């Protein structure tokens, strides 16, 4: 650092520290206590993207992170700004997405006095952050920022919050302390697994019905290439979670698709019948196990590989536990494999192919159905387009039918399942990767939870393509009421829906409306030809259901298939 000890403003120290961490963009929304920071921002090379709601800025930072693997940064003012961020923090926490969330706070002298726009955001977010800091002395900023980024991205990633009192940001002539981290209590797990790797290789070679179950940890670790090698070498079939989508592309011969509540029949049968389950970067979430760990993969030896020791044996009993980075561990297993015979999986694959043949869902290509739209979209946009989704039936159709080939090209709210995520996530993704195509798959309910972010799209001229599956209802809720509540429909009609094409146009965004099957392909092609943002409003029937489906409380083989 400079020998000159003249000192600088707190806010500038913060921005410099962010720059040191490689931050190129902050998604934010200003307010009173942040005035010193927004002033300093004018002199910083860091780009600021103004959202339309703090929930949008945190979702955008999350989308940015998912498609790059980098730490996403967002900023909101004290009080309401901070509380508006809460849902997005929870979303990042449940899906283990690295974020640094900056919140303004009232001046240190006023903290605790219920002053204007004061909330205890550290207290509010304690259960949904990996760690948090209240900055009391601006000289600590370089260290705190460095620690925050380090904690957010290492081990099992997650959101870290830094609460910034106004006086800390405003203080002039600050000579900062060194940025040396003081993290004696922070442990990143993952160590040599001597012996265990050999054990895995041995158990695998003896297995006759193995399945690899891949989740978000594979994506975080960037292990998709090793996973593919593993699949190619061993012929082990692979199922993925929603978080693991794209870690092995659907068209790969070993891919059985998604497992769980809306998984494929073959994937669910395979997990139920396998004699060896290699679980990598997964947490046996109840959307996969139906909330019944004790009845999940009961015929199998379970190997669990995860970076977070807390997840091991949390839900299911496991035979071999390996705490470590998915990429590293898979690579080590690959190295150990030549010492052992490949498992004989011929019979197993015959069985799997048979299940697949009997259970491939046929849909009518002449009707305007969600699978037809998804497949058409997949053909036109291609597997390497970035997809973000909202939450509901459309999310599951996207998961089942969109042919993603790269897990960093897929952003969906999994653990929290929060409507309104998709549009801001698409914004974050497009800003992170301006040269890539970004498409949002959304529903009419979800879209209206973040519809104001069309303003952010317009302001930043982001060429996001919005595919709106418009069924006029909260479709996923309707489906549950149809199946499990005797078709007693309650509060699912969205009769006040606007004309979405007109809404788009009001923001200066191109809108195309689709009402018949013949129009689908043309409209999607046109959307991708147009250089700017486009909304394609596709009317679908409210009677479409997401199938297969495992009813709540049932084993994963007890699927409703039609």
């Amino acid at each position: 650092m400079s020998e000159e000890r003249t000192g600088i403003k707190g806010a500038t120290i913060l921005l410099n520290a962010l720059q040191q961490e490689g931050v190129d963009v902050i998604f934010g929304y200003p307010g009173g206590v942040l005035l010193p920071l927004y002033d300093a921002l004018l002199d910083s090379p860091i780009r600021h993207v103004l959202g339309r709601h703090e929930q949008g800025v945190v979702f955008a930072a999350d989308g940015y992170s998912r498609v790059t693997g980098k730490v996403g940064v967002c900023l909101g003012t004290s009080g309401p700004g901070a509380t508006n961020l809460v849902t997005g923090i929870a979303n990042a926490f449940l899906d283990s997405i690295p974020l640094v969330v900056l919140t303004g706070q009232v001046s240190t002298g006023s903290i605790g006095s219920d002053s204007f726009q004061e909330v205890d955001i550290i207290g509010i977010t304690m259960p949904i952050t990996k760690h948090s800091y209240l900055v009391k002395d601006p000289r600590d900023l370089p260290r705190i920022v460095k620690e925050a980024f380090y904690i957010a991205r290492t081990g099992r990633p997650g959101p870290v919050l830094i609460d910034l009192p106004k006086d800390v940001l405003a203080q002039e002539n600050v000579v900062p302390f060194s940025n040396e981290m003081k993290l004696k209590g922070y442990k990143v797990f993952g160590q040599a697994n001597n012996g265990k790797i050999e054990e895995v290789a041995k158990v695998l070679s003896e297995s006759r019905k193995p399945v690899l179950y891949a989740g978000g940890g594979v994506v975080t670790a960037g292990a998709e290439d090793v996973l593919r090698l593993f699949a190619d070498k061993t012929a082990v079939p692979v199922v993925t979670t929603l978080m693991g989508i794209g870690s092995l592309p659907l068209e790969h011969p070993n891919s059985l698709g998604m497992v769980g509540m809306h998984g494929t029949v073959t994937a669910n049968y395979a997990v139920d019948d396998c004699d060896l389950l290699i679980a990598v970067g997964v947490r046996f979430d109840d959307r996969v196990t139906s909330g019944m760990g004790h009845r999940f993969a009961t015929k199998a030896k379970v190997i669990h590989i995860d970076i977070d020791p807390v997840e091991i044996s949390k839900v299911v009993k496991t035979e071999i536990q390996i705490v470590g980075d998915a990429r590293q561990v898979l690579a080590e297993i690959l190295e150990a494999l030549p010492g052992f015979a490949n498992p004989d999986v011929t019979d197993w694959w015959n069985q799997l192919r048979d299940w697949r043949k009997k259970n491939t869902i046929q849909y009518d290509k002449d009707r305007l159905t969600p699978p037809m739209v998804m497949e058409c979209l997949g053909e036109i946009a291609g597997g390497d387009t970035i997809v973000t989704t909202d939450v509901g039936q459309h999310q599951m159709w996207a998961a089942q039918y969109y042919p993603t080939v790269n897990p960093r090209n897929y952003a969906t709210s999994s653990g929290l399942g929060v409507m309104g995520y998709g549009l801001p996530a698409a914004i974050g993704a497009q800003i992170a990767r301006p040269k890539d195509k970004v498409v949002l798959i959304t529903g009419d309910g979800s879209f209206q939870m973040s519809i104001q972010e069309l303003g952010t799209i317009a302001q930043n001229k982001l060429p996001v393509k919005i595919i709106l599956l418009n069924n006029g209802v909260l479709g996923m809720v309707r489906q549950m009421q149809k199946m499990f509540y005797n078709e007693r429909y309650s509060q699912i009609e969205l009769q006040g829906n606007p004309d979405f094409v007109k809404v788009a146009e009001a923001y200066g965004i191109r809108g195309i409306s689709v009402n018949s099957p013949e129009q689908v392909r043309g409209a999607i092609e046109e959307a991708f030809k147009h250089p700017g943002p486009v909304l394609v409003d596709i009317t679908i029937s409210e009677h479409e259901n997401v199938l297969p489906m495992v009813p709540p409380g049932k084993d994963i083989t007890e699927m409703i298939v039609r």
Partner: protein
Amino acid sequence: MLHTLAVLVENNPGVLIRVAGLFTRRGYNIDSLTVCQTEDPELSRMTIVVNGDDQIIEQVRNQLSKLVVVHSVSDLTGESVVDRELALIRVQVSTETRSAVLQTVDIFRGRVVDMGRTNITVELTGDIPKIDAFVHAIQPYGLLELVRTGKVAILRSEA
């Protein structure tokens, strides 16, 4: 089963709430919890007595270890440890019971630290069963008030 966890944490405001919050959020039950500074002023030592089977205790330990403010967690249960608790107990006395009460205090090696006309306050140190036994013994005379510190524990030095 009761487990005694020795947890070394950063000596900062907010640490206690992080630890306590973890217990409530995950539904673990704290039996007792004590905190005090250690020989290193930057660190505090928590002694947490928690109830649960081995699997729960393993989860508790792992969850605690994950907190950035927690430096180490060790389970002292089954280890060779010295553990103590301090209790202050106010007991009713009358001319008839006074000598019997004092005798009981003596047997348990307690100390009388305050004396009023109708009651006395006893200080007692020991392991938990000893304090439980004293409380039991003194109850018939009239137990007016009881404060216990919760357990503190330390590993025995190797012989």
